[in-house]
């Protein structure tokens, strides 16, 4: 029983990000309103960003910016002191990508609204079937 | 059996393709027909030029594109290929002359398309004749079925549309459904698709697998019109007569039978068929087709449908001959390809001439027609003798060999089938001829004025009738080719 709790303590944050992802995915699949689907998509992408950033965490390490004082670069840099920069770089890209996708999705939603005067998917499909 | 490589086979195939631009661009119909004629004669001469080398026993090989070891687009002219190419290229000359008369006679529309696709079909036929392996044969087989589709549906009316659909469904469907998997399975078993003297499947697979492959390959080539897959042939009679004359009497159906013969000799090999005793199975399906085809032909009223069912029956003679697996039988089968071609094409020409001259299609309307078109009906009589297998015509030679073959193979039932079917042939041909000439004056539907079809139609059918008579006395090129093939196979 002890190690079960130990595992849970060590991994609980991954489970949180996964549940967040699943909420986003659920919203995207099930929600009827197009904008709510876009919101779900955003939750899903943000959860993945959170997951990536958590892979970079290091206990007892500070942000990856070296205080380089003006006395030149005498002291040696220990990797353990700084957290892992790579996931942060990747997530800068992922954030930008999610913003771009959001922008295009909203543009499409506006075009659909102009065409069908509604954002509810079932109403739109009803209009299409009428034609 | 040494082989020499020369470009001639490729030339023979391509010559009719090369003239298509000239055909399309020629303004006057005469120029177009002249070009078709030139192409036909050129093709025949190229094939003829290869005859002496083949008769000496050498084979001509030419590789176009090496695609896989053992599966390339490659030509190999051997005796069997030469026999079939000789028949179809010579008949193309006569048919192109005939179709000029026929198309002009009935003032058909879009004749350019007709001649272009005719040329395509012929180049595909020669391609099948000269193919060295199952892949090249399949390639030209498909090309032929696609080239003949616009010919069959030439009239573009509802009837043509439905028969075109049936034509495609049967032929392209069976070729993709049966031949493609069989080809791939045999390629995986044997590693090659080249037609060997004794076939390349010997000892590569278990008996049931071989049985499956045999069934797939025989029924896959639906152009051989073997019984369950034959009903596209009567439906294709909707096409103009020169098409059904050359294609559905000579080129297309013979390609089917030729492919089946190639499969039986080149893919399986007679020894393998003997050891697994598949012979009786082949004989069974062939004789079923012969008998049922002849019976249905008896009941037909439309002349062209009667000829179609008679073709179905006659084709299975070739399969029967090869199925006997005896030297004489195989020779008889192969020679029958040539004999039946000349006989049947004359009958179709007569049907076309009658349609051009009197517009009649049904036998019941042809009572006393001999008075009006004596020459045509005389040729009709001669050709029907050749089909029945009576002495004065070439058909007798192949029937003779077939009978000897069945005796040699100790297949008494086959002997009975041969004789009974000849009887049936006579039963459905002779009444037509009798009623044409010796009907009572009262029922005669035609006055005595002799009014033949235009010369362009009559001359070709007389030529082919004469040839089928000559073939009895001088069957040399075909007999020698056939015996050479059989010697090659049985090694005697």
């Amino acid at each position, binding site marked *: 029983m002890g190690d079960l709790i130990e595992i849970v303590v060590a991994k609980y944050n991954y489970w949180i990000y996964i549940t967040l992802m699943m909420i986003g995915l*659920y919203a995207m*699949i099930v929600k009827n309103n197009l904008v709510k689907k876009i919101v779900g998509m955003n939750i899903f992408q943000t959860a993945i960003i959170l997951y990536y950033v958590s892979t*970079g965490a290091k206990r007892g390490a500070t942000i990856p*910016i070296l205080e380089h004082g003006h006395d030149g670069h005498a002291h040696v840099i220990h*990797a353990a002191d700084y957290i*892992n920069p790579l996931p942060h770089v990747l997530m800068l*890209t992922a954030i930008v990508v999610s913003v*771009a996708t959001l922008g*295009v999705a909203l*543009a499409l939603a506006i075009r659909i609204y102009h065409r069908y005067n509604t954002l509810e998917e079932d109403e739109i499909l009803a209009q299409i079937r009428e034609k | 059996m040494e082989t020499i490589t020369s470009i001639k086979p490729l030339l023979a195939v391509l010559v009719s393709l090369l003239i298509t631009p000239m055909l399309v661009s020629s303004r006057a119909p005469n120029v177009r027909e002249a070009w078709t004629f030139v192409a036909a004669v050129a093709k025949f001469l190229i094939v003829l030029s290869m005859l002496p080398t083949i008769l000496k026993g050498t084979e001509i090989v030419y590789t176009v594109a090496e695609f896989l070891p053992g599966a390339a687009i490659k030509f190999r002219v051997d005796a069997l290929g030469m026999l079939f190419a000789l028949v179809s290229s010579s008949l193309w000359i006569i048919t192109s002359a005939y179709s000029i008369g026929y198309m002009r006679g009935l003032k058909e529309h879009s004749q350019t398309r007709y001649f272009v696709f005719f040329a395509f079909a012929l180049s595909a036929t020669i391609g099948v004749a000269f193919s060295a392996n199952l892949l090249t044969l399949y390639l030209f087989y498909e090309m032929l079925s696609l080239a003949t589709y616009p010919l069959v549906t030439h009239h573009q009316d509802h009837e043509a549309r439905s028969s075109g659909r049936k034509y495609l469904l049967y032929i392209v469907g069976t070729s993709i459904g049966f031949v493609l998997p069989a080809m791939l399975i045999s390629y995986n078993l044997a590693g090659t698709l080249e037609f060997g003297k004794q076939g390349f499947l010997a000892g590569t697979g278990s008996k049931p697998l071989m049985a499956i492959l045999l069934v797939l390959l025989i029924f896959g080539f639906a152009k051989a019109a073997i019984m369950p897959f034959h009903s596209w042939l009567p439906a294709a009679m909707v096409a103009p007569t020169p098409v059904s004359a050359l294609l559905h009497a000579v080129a297309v159906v013979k390609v089917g039978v030729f492919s089946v013969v190639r499969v039986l000799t080149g893919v399986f090999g007679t020894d393998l068929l003997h050891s697994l005793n598949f012979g009786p199975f082949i004989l069974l399906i062939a004789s079923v087709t012969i008998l049922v085809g002849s019976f249905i032909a008896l009941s037909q009223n439309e002349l062209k449908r009667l000829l179609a069912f008679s073709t179905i029956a006659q084709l299975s003679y070739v399969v029967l001959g090869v199925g006997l697996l005896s030297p004489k039988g195989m020779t008889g089968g192969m020679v029958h390809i040539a004999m039946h071609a000349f006989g049947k094409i004359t009958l179709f020409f007569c049907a076309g001439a009658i349609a051009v001259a009197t517009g009649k299609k049904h036998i019941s309307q042809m009572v006393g027609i001999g008075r009006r078109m004596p020459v045509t009906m005389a040729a009709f009589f001669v050709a029907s003798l050749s089909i029945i297998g009576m002495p004065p015509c070439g058909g007798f030679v192949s029937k003779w060999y077939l009978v000897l073959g069945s005796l040699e193979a100790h297949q008494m039932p086959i002997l009975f089938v041969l004789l009974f079917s000849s009887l049936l042939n006579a039963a459905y041909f002779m009444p037509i001829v009798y009623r044409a000439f010796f009907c009572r004056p009262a029922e005669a539907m035609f006055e005595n004025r002799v009014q033949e079809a235009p010369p362009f139609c009559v001359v070709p059918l007389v030529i082919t009738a004469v040839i089928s008579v000559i073939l009895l006395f001088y069957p040399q090129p075909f007999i020698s080719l056939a015996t050479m093939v059989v010697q090659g196979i049985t090694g005697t």
Partner: protein
Amino acid sequence: MTILGLIIVLSTGALLIYATVDFPAWADPASPASLHLSPHFIERTMEETSVPNIVTAVLADYRGYDTMYETTVIFSAGVACFILLRILLREEPGESLYRHVLTGVTIRVKEGAKIPPSADFERIDTLWAPHDLIIKTMCRLLIPFIQLFALYVIAHGHHSPGGGFQGGVILGASIILLAISHDLRTSVQRMREKVDALLSATGVFIYAGTGALCLLLGLNFLDYSALASVLHVDPVTARSHGILIVEIGVGIAVMATMIWIYSNVSSTGKYDEGL
């Protein structure tokens, strides 16, 4: 549909959680992620690119190719929004809202009708836009400082958290603040659409251009040490300057694209009335 959604979500969730069993513990210094590549970045960045902020160094130099495509993503999103929404053909303007400056009364003008241009009527975007002097003046005061801070963020990407993207977004936000507080027409009047589109193209062009320049100078694409011969400085600081140029390019591109997307989306392509 909901059951299907539930099944999919639960099954993927179960699979993902089941897989976390083999994960290293959270923030464990000995996890593969922090033993394989990161030590190299942390220890070697200072001597290879002389840029204290490792994230900016990795962002613009080690994985600079990624970031170039990231900026291209933003640019293509801008172009996509433009092509989807923008209505270029000038059909007659729909109904518009005017407000009488002194009394605060709003007037709705039907299509086609015109109001004689006079000082005391001002056009407003939407009915509920409050006429609020405080907001307008406050924003007018704040915007220059926001822009100044944004420039600081871009410039100090080397030493402090920040860089092209963050600075660019803040710059874009300052112009969008202008569009929200006043109205889209004033912000469009400040930053023409054509200038905006050209700026976003040039921003990314600067980025890819410097990379192509390194290519022309003989080394591989995006290898800033090739700039040493152009900038007459040793290769390591050339890398640092290369990163700075690239960050500026990114800043410009992101700013312009943010404004472009905002003005297209908020005015649904008509560019006359914002939010």
